[in-house]
Structure formats: C-alpha cells, structure tokens
C-alpha cells in the first residue's frame, strides 16, 4: 500500500468518525398534516347571444339564409364523475310563428365547431347538440341557417328554443 493510500485510509476513517458524531447530536421532529378537498357536481352553460335573426332574402339568390349573429359562441362547463356523460340538447317550443302563419322549425339547422359539439336540425323534440365525458370546460360555436322558400308567407316570425346541459 502506498503512502498516499495509507493517508487516504486514515483521513476517511477520521471523517467517518466525525460524521457519526454529527449524526449523534442532530435533532429532528416530524408532524403530519392531512389535506382534504371536496369537489361537488356543477354545470354551467353560456351562449354568446340570447337571440338570432334571419334577414329577408330572395329565395332564388339566397336559398339558405345565415343568421346575422353567426357564429354564436357556446361554452359548456361541468363537474361530474370522471367517467360520467355530459350532454347538451336543444328543443324548440314550436314552429316559427307569425300570427296565423308558421314556418316549420325544422327549416332551421345549425353547424357546430369545437370538440364534442354536434350539428343538427331544430325540432320540437330534443336534439343532441353536444356530448362529452367527465369534468371540464368546452368551447364551441353554432352557426344557424334557415332554408329559404317562396312558400313562406310574409311576416315576422319567432320562436324560442331551449338548450339543456346535463351532468350527473
């Protein structure tokens, strides 16, 4: 063994003794804190506008009338179980009405953009407008169209549709 190795052995031994002595006089104490958090079910639906309108147009020149407010932003926020379905539906309260005249509500369609949002046709029965799984915030757009027709009677037509967001 060389002199350097002997010196190294002695130094290491001394340091080991020193380390042991340091550990023997250090002090520690420990305590545990418990963290609890509760997350409850919640659902929130936001539409960019409360009303849309279709302007008058020549059926020959404009066979499909776009709503003036297109695109309409839609935001779906839901908290539910991680595997639970989240659904958005729409249902019209009736046909477009102007006094005694009506335009079938099925003449109104929409195209959707955004993950999970669905395109469709208005109806007096519930129609799917979006489908997701689990909690989260989803943003999309709906663009509405009215099929134009010479058969429509002159008038100012209106109707309400109800969007329903469901998150169990």
């Amino acid at each position, binding site marked *: 063994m060389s002199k350097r190795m002997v010196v190294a052995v002695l130094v290491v031994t001394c340091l080991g*003794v020193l380390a042991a002595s340091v550990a023997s006089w*250090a002090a520690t*104490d420990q305590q*545990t804190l418990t963290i609890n958090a509760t997350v409850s079910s*919640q659902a929130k639906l936001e539409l960019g506008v409360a009303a849309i309108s279709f302007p008058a147009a020549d059926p020959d020149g404009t066979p499909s009338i776009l709503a003036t407010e297109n695109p309409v932003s839609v935001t779906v926020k*839901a908290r539910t179980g991680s595997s639970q379905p989240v659904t958005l539906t729409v249902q019209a309260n009736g046909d477009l009405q102007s006094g005694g005249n009506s335009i079938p509500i099925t003449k109104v369609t929409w195209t959707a953009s955004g993950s999970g949002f669905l395109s469709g046709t208005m109806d007096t029965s519930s129609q799917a407008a979006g489908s997701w799984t689990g909690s989260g915030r989803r943003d999309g757009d709906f663009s509405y169209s009215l099929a134009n027709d010479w058969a429509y009677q002159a008038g100012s037509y209106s109707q309400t549709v109800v969007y329903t967001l469901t998150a169990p």
Partner: protein
Amino acid sequence: MEEGRGQQSAGGRMQVRELGSLRAAGRCAWAKWLVPAMALPAITAAAVRPAAAASARLTLSPSAVSFPPADPDAVPSIAGSGPVSVQVKVGGGPSISSQLSCQASGDLQSGPAIIPISRITWTAQGQGFLSGTLSRSAPQLVGQWMGNVDTQGQLQFWLQNSWSYAVGSYSQSVLYTLIAY
C-alpha cells in the same frame, strides 16, 4: 523506535533524512513510515463535538386542512380552513442551524381521480417562515433559523380551482420535518 516525520530528537530537530531512505526501501519503507504515523495524537469525535447537543420540537395545530366545494368561475382560488399554527422550538446554542421542510405523500386522491398536489400553495407568516407550493417529489422549505428558536408561525393554504376536477372527496397527507444540527 526510529525517528522520522512527526517526531523530534532529543535536541528538538525534525529527522527528515529517514523519509529519504523510505522512498528507496520499498516494502520495508512502508513499515518504517507507518510506525511514526501511528504515534501521532489520535483525533477523536470528542475533540470536534459541540458543547451541547441540539433539540427540536415541532407542533402543528390543527393537524388537518379542508377545502370546501366552490364554483371555479366565482372562486378561482379556494382558501383552506385554518390557518395552521406551526410552533418551532430548537435548543442547542447559537451555532445551531434548523430547517423546517414538508413533502406530500402523493397527489390529492379520490378513488382513481387525482388533483395534482402542486395545485396547493401556502402563504406563511412569522419570523423565518417561508411561503411555497406543495410537492410530492421533493421536500419544500417552510422555514429556517439560526441559534435557539422558540417561535410560532401561521400557514394559510390555497387550492387552485378548476372545472377539470372530477367530483369526489380528496385527501392526502403531508409530512413536516424539523431538523436542527
């Protein structure tokens, strides 16, 4: 015993000539050199130990924090119940250093659903106490002091709210460690 490095002759002179012959003598030189080395004064732990051993005591009150449910739009950051009072006592003299750290055992858990533990932060009040963010991967510094300590601080916890959290009752434990050395 032959004289060598580390020893003196009766006249007080250091005998260095012997080392010259050590280098030339090979294996026998090792034995000659080792004897003088073993004659050196022994360095023991007693010679470097401080005058008094350190003491440390940690108290948390309460021992649990709860976050209530809240609308993420209305309450983007949920305040936890509390604050938690932390009492630190360290003894051992002016040369003692002490540190308080914490580390979570994992993320907030509710069955298979989790909320990352890093979504929880705390703000601290009190001398030597530090604010921070909980972590499950590494201890986080909560406070540090020098010398004897008898102090109390308060930790207020906050949970970053989000629509992405699954419904459930979440929990996790956080270990606080006080060390004085």
